[in-house]
């Protein structure tokens, strides 16, 4: 959807069904079904390294309740998770662990950087010998949620943005985000 039809309806008999990204109807319909399924049952990995994790817990708890959007099955194991919410500071010591957790997750996998520390190092950007200046130095990030820490509404908005992104995915054109990441191509 959202792609302009180059042929107008008058030139062709019957009803024109818009096929996004130049793929055929079967593939895009299948895309839609798969994306619908994926985007509505994202299983997040528990990954809280500092105070953002408190807001993440609050987002999962009764008042904000992320299970309304299909996030309720938070997993303690990366093998069973689709989404990693980086909730907190990533230090030089933690970076290899984060990378290993990401590598252990099954495809397709998504990353949400929550809060100033995960985006850029935040308050530890200057004069810190131990903090990574943004989680995207370690793994590719899909959605950034600013705040210090972000309120649960902001995190939910970021997660809904990720769902939107997944719904627009195209099976044929999709690339693994880690491909070329270590070589600095992204």
């Amino acid at each position, binding site marked *: 959807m959202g792609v302009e039809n180059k042929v107008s309806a008058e030139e062709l008999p019957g009803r024109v069904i818009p096929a996004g990204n130049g793929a055929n109807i079967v593939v895009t319909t299948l895309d839609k079904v798969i994306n619908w399924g994926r985007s509505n049952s994202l299983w997040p990995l528990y990954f809280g390294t500092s105070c953002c994790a408190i807001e993440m817990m609050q987002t999962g708890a009764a008042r904000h309740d992320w299970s309304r959007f299909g996030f309720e099955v938070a997993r303690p194991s990366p093998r069973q998770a689709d989404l990693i919410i980086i909730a907190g500071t990533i230090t*030089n010591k933690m970076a290899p662990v984060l990378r290993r957790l990401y590598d252990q997750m099954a495809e397709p996998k998504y990353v949400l950087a929550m809060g100033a520390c995960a985006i850029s190092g935040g308050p530890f*950007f*200057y*004069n*810190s*010998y*131990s903090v990574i*200046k943004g989680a995207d130095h370690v793994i590719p990030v899909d959605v950034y949620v600013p705040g210090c820490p972000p309120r649960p509404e902001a995190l939910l908005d970021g997660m809904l943005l990720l769902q939107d992104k997944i719904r627009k995915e195209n099976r044929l054109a999709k690339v693994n985000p880690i491909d070329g990441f270590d070589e600095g191509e992204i």
Partner: protein
Amino acid sequence: MTNQEIQNIVSGWSENLEFTEEGSQFLNVTLPKEELHSICEKLKETPELDFDYLFCVTGMDWGKELGVIYHLESIDKKHNIVVKVKNDDRENPTLDTVCDIWSTAEFHEMEVYDFFGIKFNNHPNLKRLFLTPDWDGYPLRKDYVDEANMVIK
């Protein structure tokens, strides 16, 4: 016991002590490093003072000197004192350990050694605590440089 009464007792032990309460809720005493161990021992052993609880050890880089700050409390008598000791040798700073007086100092002094490079004489197990054993330099010193990881402002 009030801060003034503590000061009256402690000031009789040595002539090289400086007392201040400025900008602090505690009585602060700065002492020369040679007298650190003997004064700390007296602070604990004197029955009226009875500083039996060392609740905080802080490494400090004042820019010129390196030093350590000890926060002491008496659990029974509910009074506090802060002991500061400075060392202006930045190449090879050494202080006497107080872990034979308060054994909690053992780990605190390992941490101070880890981040400030202050060596404690007679410490039973002085080694890197949080950083890797092969770490180069002492990262909480003001003049620490790490061009790969640090953005200086």
